[in-house]
């Protein structure tokens, strides 16, 4: 489809229009499910990134596909934080919100999502709706909202849309996009390109109708609003790409050279497979949707056993189901990459919401001693590279590598430097050369625990892998000496890898009062909080771990340079002030648990399971409270 180009409207009501120039701005667009707020937000985020802004987006997703309309719990949409510098997290509060009805607006208000002086653009249709109940609901909501400091602007969205389209429910999101495009001075040509891409499978008509609504929103805003917001682009001379974490995982898988992904649908991991379903065949790959999570692991293991490393992608409940197969891969030393896009748990938990509570399951869920490698991307860019790293480690160490992403990264959109693709990321083709007589399938290097893999097709290498205890020839052997040695060999590989890693870098001073330790998607929020705290004169640094098994080296030494070490995580820990909780029985955050065991340092934790990403302002408060007694002490 030819993409029409449209010049930005030259004229503006400049006389009455204030242009605000904040260094960053956070906006949300919320609607009932199915009204397209998410698409609007995604396009706005992508275009902002393409225009050079730092961007982070978060999806606001109800658990149901079509929850009842006009209910607070049905709110669906997107938060976009744009800045003049790199943006690494979703921020604290929303500065501007576009709401398709007052109920979804109320939901965001009640959740404390909006800044005290937020600008609110709300559909005015409901004020004069023929249904008296709806009118009453509107009046009641407006009364509640009037007690706030919001600047509320009523926008006749549907009335406007009806002037050019007979089904405004389907096009209101493009009208809203037009509003935002005018307010934030977004490049209409780029927006139209994005619309063309989003509707590439639809007719030209659909495209034209959407562009018409976009322009209508733009003109309405120009004629009726008295402010614009200009967030200058971030300075960057590097080529950037912008995508969400699941797209980055899928692209990373392509870059890693893996040729088979077996999966079973599960939120929030599934979109990785949607991406692969579109392109994997072109890359010589197979996306296999298995009959269940267990079979998905089995198919990936079968493929890995017979050639190139394969992978499976899942979320918590799926990881639980794959447990036995993961143990088999570890026992048979069959390389396997398992991507776990974490959500809230346990059980079905919070399917669409972020949590970091699969860490201990990823590390330990298994009968017997089953060491495996666990890594966690902290950014969208990490999502891309973590899969490449995982493939290489799985191959080099003949073991399972679990990649712990999460729902925040999965749907978060962020620009990052365009990867310079390298051939060696893809690994070698299967080696089908004959095996020298006498070669053992587990010829463990006695120091390293590593051994070279023999795969079917290699003449002279025939052997049977087994999940039973086995010796170097893969012969079933129950002798105590054999089991002790084989278990040691599988374990040794982790020690070897740990010694190959470099100690992690401390963000901030290398010593001080407080060290915050995190892992995974919380990096941006933690580092922003720590920077703000340091700017306020507090003695705090942070450390972010990419390797969870084995842990990066030198942690105990780093920890000793701080008076207090505390993890910040999105998982559960007991509040020390709660009834019955003592230092002895307190259940701690999952990383804290590991760090205490591994370093013998009295690592504290602050963790929450709110079903949303952590806010930097909240972490800053935690830092202040944690350091407060010491500040008072110093003052006295």
């Amino acid at each position: 489809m030819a993409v029409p180009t449209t010049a930005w409207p030259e004229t503006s009501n400049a006389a009455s229009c204030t242009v605000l120039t904040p260094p960053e701005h956070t906006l949300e667009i919320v609607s009932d499910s199915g009204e397209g707020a998410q698409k609007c937000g995604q396009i706005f985020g992508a275009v902002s990134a393409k225009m050079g802004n730092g961007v982070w987006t978060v999806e606001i997703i109800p658990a149901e596909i079509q929850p009842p309309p006009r209910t607070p719990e049905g709110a669906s949409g997107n938060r976009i934080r744009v800045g003049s510098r790199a943006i690494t997290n979703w921020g604290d509060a929303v500065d501007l919100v576009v709401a398709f009805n007052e109920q979804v607006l109320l939901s965001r208000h009640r959740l404390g999502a909006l800044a005290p002086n937020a600008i609110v653009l709300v559909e005015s249709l409901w004020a004069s709706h023929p249904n008296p109940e709806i009118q009453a609901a509107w009046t009641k909501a407006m009364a509640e909202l009037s007690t706030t400091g919001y600047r509320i602007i009523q926008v006749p969205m549907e009335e406007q849309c009806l002037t050019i389209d007979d089904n405004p429910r389907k096009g209101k999101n493009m009208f809203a996009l037009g509003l935002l495009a005018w307010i934030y001075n977004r490049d209409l040509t780029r927006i139209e390109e994005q619309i063309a891409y989003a509707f590439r499978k639809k007719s030209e008509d659909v495209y034209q109708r959407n562009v018409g609504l976009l322009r209508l929103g733009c003109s309405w805003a120009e004629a009726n609003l008295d402010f614009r917001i200009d967030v200058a682009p971030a300075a960057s001379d590097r080529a950037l790409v912008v995508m969400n974490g699941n797209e980055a995982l899928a692209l990373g898988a392509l870059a890693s050279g893996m040729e088979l992904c077996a999966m079973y649908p599960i939120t929030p991991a599934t979109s990785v497979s949607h991406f692969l379903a579109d392109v994997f065949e072109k890359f010589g790959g197979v996306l296999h949707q298995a009959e269940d999570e267990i079979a998905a692991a089995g198919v990936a293991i079968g493929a890995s056993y017979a050639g190139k490393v394969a992978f499976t992608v899942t979320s918590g409940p799926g990881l639980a189901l794959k447990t036995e197969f993961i143990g088999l891969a570890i026992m048979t030393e069959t390389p396997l990459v398992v991507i776990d896009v974490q959500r809230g748990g346990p059980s079905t938990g919070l399917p669409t919401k972020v949590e970091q509570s699969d860490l201990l399951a990823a590390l330990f869920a298994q009968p017997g001693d089953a060491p495996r490698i666990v890594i966690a991307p902290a950014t969208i860019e990490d999502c891309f590279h973590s899969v490449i790293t995982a493939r290489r480690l799985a191959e080099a160490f003949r073991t399972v590598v679990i990649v712990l992403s999460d729902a925040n990264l999965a749907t978060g959109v962020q620009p990052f430097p365009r990867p310079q693709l390298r051939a060696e990321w893809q690994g070698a083709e299967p080696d089908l050369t004959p095996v020298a007589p006498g070669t053992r399938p587990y010829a463990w290097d006695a120091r390293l625990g590593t051994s070279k893999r023999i795969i079917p097709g290699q003449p002279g290498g025939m052997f049977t892998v087994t999940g039973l205890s086995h010796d170097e020839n893969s012969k079933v052997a129950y002798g105590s000496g054999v089991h002790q040695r084989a278990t040691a060999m599988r374990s040794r590989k982790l020690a070897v890898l740990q010694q190959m890693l470099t100690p992690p870098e401390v963000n901030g001073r290398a010593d001080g009062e407080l060290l915050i330790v995190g892992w995974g998607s919380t990096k941006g929020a933690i580092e922003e909080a720590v920077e703000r705290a340091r700017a306020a004169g507090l003695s705090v640094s942070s450390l972010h771990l990419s390797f969870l098994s084995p842990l990066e080296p030198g942690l105990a030494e780093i920890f000793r340079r701080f008076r207090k070490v505390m993890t910040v995580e999105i998982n559960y820990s007991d509040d020390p002030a709660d009834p019955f909780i003592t230092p002895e029985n307190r259940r701690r955050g999952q990383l804290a648990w590991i760090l205490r065991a591994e370093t013998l340092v009295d690592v504290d934790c602050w963790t929450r399971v709110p079903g949303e990403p952590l806010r930097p302002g909240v972490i800053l408060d935690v830092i202040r409270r944690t350091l407060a007694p010491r500040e008072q002490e110093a003052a006295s």
Partner: protein
Amino acid sequence: MSEFSCSVLGCVTPSVGDERDYELGDYEGPVARWCPGCGDHSVLTAVERLLVAEQLKPEQTVFVSGIGCSSRFPHYLKTYGFHGIHGRALPVATGIKLHRPDLTVFVVMGDGDCCSIGAAHWVHAIRYNTQMVAMLLDNSIYGLTKKQTSPTTPQGFKTNTQPTGSFLPPLNPLSTMLGTTNVSFVAQTAEWIPAHLYATLRAAYQHRGLAFVRILQRCPMYTQSIYERAVKDPSLVELLVHDDGVVVPELDAIYRGRLAHNPSDLNAARALADDGERIRLGVFFRDEARPRYDEIRRAHKVSTTERIALLDQELDKYAV
């Protein structure tokens, strides 16, 4: 076939041309440690005969099994083997075949393995119809764990978990498979009739698609009695005969109960499978025209350089 696939896969070196004839000794592994009198021995012998007859390269052949007595099978051969976990041999075999279509894959399962803990995979494997031979070594009991009721244990048969007798009628694996969409080959044979066993496995091997063979077996420890009458009295056995099925002339004199059955007739096959009056051996159904998942999903080879170029194009879509 293997050369073609190797070029498809871009293997480093195709297997060197070992063109000599393979003999029994090229396939025979260590002495099998099943109980004396176990039906698994007969199956292993028949499989070894098949490997020799078809001259399958040991390095191009993979036996995949689950857990149970019969799943020790791969250990007793000198081919490649994958002895996995209980009930999950079929997914592993599917993964092997999807990624390495050049390999010949056999799957060995027991009745608990296939029809109970692995039932989900079983039904879906039938529908995938991936090119491989699947053998169900059905002795109607959990033997390795010592006499628990399996899905195919006869009703009333006493076990350690159902000491007053198995509560329910047994699951009929043939009916299950013949009722599953996209089934392409279902046969039944018996461990005590080696000639029929061998002929059936050979027909299964030559089938294009998933060839599923249920092998009726006795466990000498726990279920010796269940086929005792049929072993002693060939008239209790009816052979399904057809040019497209299994023809074993040497059995003519002993097994006189014969029924002409055209394996392309699915309804007739279902009726014969459902009727529990007689022990019927032979090919119940075969249809090579059914879609094969491994064929539909066959990947083409993409070089490292091509992949980088393609990936650059994908990244262009996300370029700022």
